[in-house]
């Protein structure tokens, strides 16, 4: 009886074990293993080098730049996306005529693929025909080489990514803002509470769990940014937009240094894990505070 139940359980779990094992666990374990190897041009391991790949990485100027710009990129992208999406969500939750149109527009970026969006922005950043350069010229401001200046290139990638992630964050936050009970705002109305008091005592606390969720998702998405970099800057100029995932791709499939690429992947995994743990710890501590 017991055995049959175990068999049934295994049978039911088998499809997901198969899928997860093939596409998640096996590649993950293999990545960890490959990060301790040197490989030939085909990516086959030649010999074991221990942690040499990692020490090489941290001694490499290129990799350190990559880590720095990745952290700056992720931090700025996440903050700007969440703040902007929250602001739009509050605007779009007002009961005005035709507000449905704006809700659709604000969430529309969800339906656009990375490639299409990047090419769109590539045109807008074009120094000759691009919208941004035209605007600067119109305002008689000095021209900016959007994609070939180390700082502005990162700004351009951040702008593109924020725009692309905005739709999803906006939609989720809009749902949260609209779910806040109306009577809380009526209490505020009766006493003429200021906009600031409403935001800090009603809206923000009520949407905090959703803000947390959106932050985590945006953050992890930002760490995995690839398409925008590939199309807009290809990691340049001088590695200043060489985000980690792009760097991994370059090392694995362009430089054929699979061992080095695997080591970078492990570093990225560890960073995301640490950040996620910190977030959940903060959230748990907050929950504990509410319990009394």
């Amino acid at each position, binding site marked *: 009886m017991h055995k049959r139940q175990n068999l049934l359980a295994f049978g039911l779990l088998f499809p997901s074990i198969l899928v997860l094992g093939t596409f998640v666990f096996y590649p993950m374990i293999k990545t960890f293993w490959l990060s301790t190897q040197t490989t030939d041009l085909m990516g086959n391991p030649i010999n074991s080098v221990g942690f040499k790949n990692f020490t090489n990485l941290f001694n490499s100027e290129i990799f350190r730049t990559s880590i720095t710009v990745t952290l700056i990129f992720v931090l700025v992208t996440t903050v700007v996306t969440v703040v902007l999406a929250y602001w739009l969500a509050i605007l779009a939750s007002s009961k005005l005529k035709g507000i449905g149109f704006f809700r659709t527009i604000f969430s529309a970026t969800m339906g656009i693929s990375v490639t299409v969006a990047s090419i769109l922005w590539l045109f807008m950043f074009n120094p000759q025909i691009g919208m941004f350069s035209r605007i600067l010229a119109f305002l008689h401001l000095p021209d900016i080489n959007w994609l070939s200046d180390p700082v502005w290139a990162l700004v351009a990638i951040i702008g593109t990514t924020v725009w692309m992630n905005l739709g999803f964050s906006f939609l989720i936050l809009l749902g949260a803002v609209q779910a806040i009970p109306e009577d*809380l705002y009526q*209490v505020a*109305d*009766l006493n003429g509470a*200021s906009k600031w008091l409403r935001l800090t005592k009603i809206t923000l606390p*009520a949407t905090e769990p959703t803000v947390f969720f959106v932050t985590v998702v945006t953050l992890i998405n930002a760490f995995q940014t690839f398409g925008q970099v590939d199309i807009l800057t290809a990691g340049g100029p001088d590695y200043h937009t060489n985000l980690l995932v792009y760097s991994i791709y370059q090392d694995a499939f362009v430089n054929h240094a699979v061992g080095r690429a695997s080591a970078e992947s492990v570093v990225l995994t560890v960073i995301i894990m640490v950040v996620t743990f910190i977030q959940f710890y903060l959230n748990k501590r907050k929950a504990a505070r*509410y319990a*009394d």
Partner: protein
Amino acid sequence: MSIKLQHLKKTYDNGEEVLTDINTVIEDGQFYVLVGASGSGKSTILNAVAGFIPVTEGQILIGDKDVTNLPPKDRNLAMVFQNYALMPNLTVAENIVFGLKARHVDKNIQQERLAEVLDAVHLTEYQHKRPTNLSGGQRQRVSLARALVSDAKVVLMDEPLSNLDAKLRAEMRREIRSLQQALGLTVIYVTHDQTEAMTMGDKVMLLNQGKIEQIGAPLDLYNHPVNTFVADFFGSPAINLLDATIANSKLTLGNGHSFKFNQTLEGPVKVGIRPENVHIYPGGSMNGKVTFVEPLGDGTNLAVDIGAGQLMRMKVSEQLLLNVGDDVRFDVVLDQMMLFDAKTEQLLSVGQAENIAV
């Protein structure tokens, strides 16, 4: 502070009329109940008085001041909400002084008033807890305290007891009523519960589909309902409304039983008999078969088939040992018997029938 509602009208954009010509005066210190089924417009009136929704036509006067177009904060009102409307992130004390804080009241005065109202609603030892850790009754008392702390003389209450269990509701009814009387508050109280309307109100407005059916003291509405809707709304079990005809000063029920009738009326009518206005005793002049019995302990509810397809609900204060199918004899208390026009359903008279001498 008195409140006057003059020709209030509310029409939605789609043309649906939710309030039609609401007129009433709520006296200073009165406990005024708006009662009706859902969709009757009672909450719409309350929201209009609060200033949460604009009215289409008419004026709202609070203490002789026209507030029709003023924002809620300038109407000097407090409100108690059905779902308490407490901010989960704030403690009991912070919730209560929220309005004072919004109005920039001096911190010392805030604390003084807080202590007073916490005492009034018996929540002093809970002031540092958060609402999620309180029971429903305690939460509603916090909401009540927040309304009291504002010092507003008009308090609006929107079904404040509907989320509480029956026992707590009875307790809170008394608590709210005594606080209102002690503080001399003018209260507009919205409810769908006829018991709350009867037990708490100084004056009751019964609404039906955006129209006023009747305004009056609770017992007036019970004893002299202007039509069958009002008669049917109050009382549990509901009033018996039986078809009958009047001819030659004789009122005859469907089952053939007749009463002497003193007014010059002819034709079909509806007879209204409250379930408690029935005497069951062996010498009764009417009879019927019991179709259902509900022993209550302190009394008995029953329904009796009196013939010709007419069922009569009865409520007596004794424990009757009756079974379904038993024969009972009874008489009706005639000076409480109501007559309604069969067509318009308006009240014609109360207590004009007499038993015909046998």
